[in-house]
């Protein structure tokens, strides 16, 4: 859909599917999945380097011109997230960050107070901030007002594959949005990615649904098609739902059966 780019902070992306790199068994499978997804932007985590170790994920991304988006996964406080974002910026020479500040390991839900604090600090430091947030229209509005370049509400908790548990909240976030809305987390299968786009999201970010599928490259292809299908359906304008049937063939004249 070259004539319908995703635009975040003035940058155009041809693909509305952002694939995270977490969870893949090995780099070869990840590489095939990234190519099948035709993603142009992908998340990476920032972690301590062991002696002589290299994960190699950056080499894979560089080989295909896929932009790495550092995240702050695992951070619990604004202070941790700000330092991690600064380290990611230095390591990858980017001012973009996927901001994650989580409350606990069991739910991995965003910690809203620390998240907003971190977002405000990072915007002040000149970052392009893409926050992973709850499906809370009020928090999403606060993050956009703070200067975030997009808001990324969850469909359901990270890695659960439970899909979009509160579609109405996602619709409210979309309806009031002043920045792009990226459905992030909870997608389990292709129909849910399509649903996110039908609800009006501008893009979908997912990882586990692809990387832990039995056939990751094939699921990546399914997600690519689903995001495109959902986007087309959204732009095409769906029919209103009706209680009673409405015939799609002309009224049949009654002629004698003799």
């Amino acid at each position, binding site marked *: 859909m070259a004539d319908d780019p995703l635009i975040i902070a003035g940058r155009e992306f041809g693909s509305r599917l952002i694939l995270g790199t*977490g969870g893949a068994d090995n780099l070869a499978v990840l590489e095939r999945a990234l190519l099948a997804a035709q993603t142009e932007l992908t*998340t990476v985590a920032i972690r301590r380097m062991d002696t002589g170790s290299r*994960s190699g994920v950056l080499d894979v991304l560089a080989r295909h011109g896929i932009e790495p988006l550092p995240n702050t996964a695992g951070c619990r406080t604004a202070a941790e997230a700000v330092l991690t974002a600064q380290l990611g910026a230095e390591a990858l020479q980017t001012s973009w960050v996927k901001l994650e500040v989580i409350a606990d390991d069991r739910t991995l839900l965003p910690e809203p107070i620390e998240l907003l604090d971190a977002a405000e600090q990072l915007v002040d430091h000149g970052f392009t901030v893409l926050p992973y947030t709850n499906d809370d229209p009020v928090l999403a509005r606060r993050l956009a007002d703070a200067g975030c370049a997009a808001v990324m509400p969850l469909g359901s908790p990270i890695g659960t594959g439970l899909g979009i548990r509160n579609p109405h909240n996602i619709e409210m976030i979309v309806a009031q949005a002043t920045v792009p809305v990226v459905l992030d987390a909870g997608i389990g299968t292709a129909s849910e990615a399509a649903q996110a786009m039908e609800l009006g999201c501008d893009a979908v970010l997912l990882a586990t649904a692809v990387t832990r599928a039995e056939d990751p490259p094939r699921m990546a292809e399914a997600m690519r098609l689903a995001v495109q299908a959902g986007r087309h359906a959204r732009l095409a304008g769906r029919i209103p739902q009706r209680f009673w049937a409405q015939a799609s063939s002309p009224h049949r004249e009654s002629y004698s059966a003799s």
Partner: protein
Amino acid sequence: MTVTVNGQPWDLPDGATLADVLHRLGTPPRGVAVALDGAVVPRARWAGTPLPAGASVDVVTAVQGG
């Protein structure tokens, strides 16, 4: 003197710099960042940044995630 590098105690000669730590770690030419006592030090300043005794150094890179 002793400093902490990624949570491990390291013995280094007095006057050692961040660049010495990164050399010993076998740092790749890109994709790495360093924090000294909780503040990021850009790559261009590694060689000119001596380590105080007891310093805490974190060396990070990008891995699969998110």
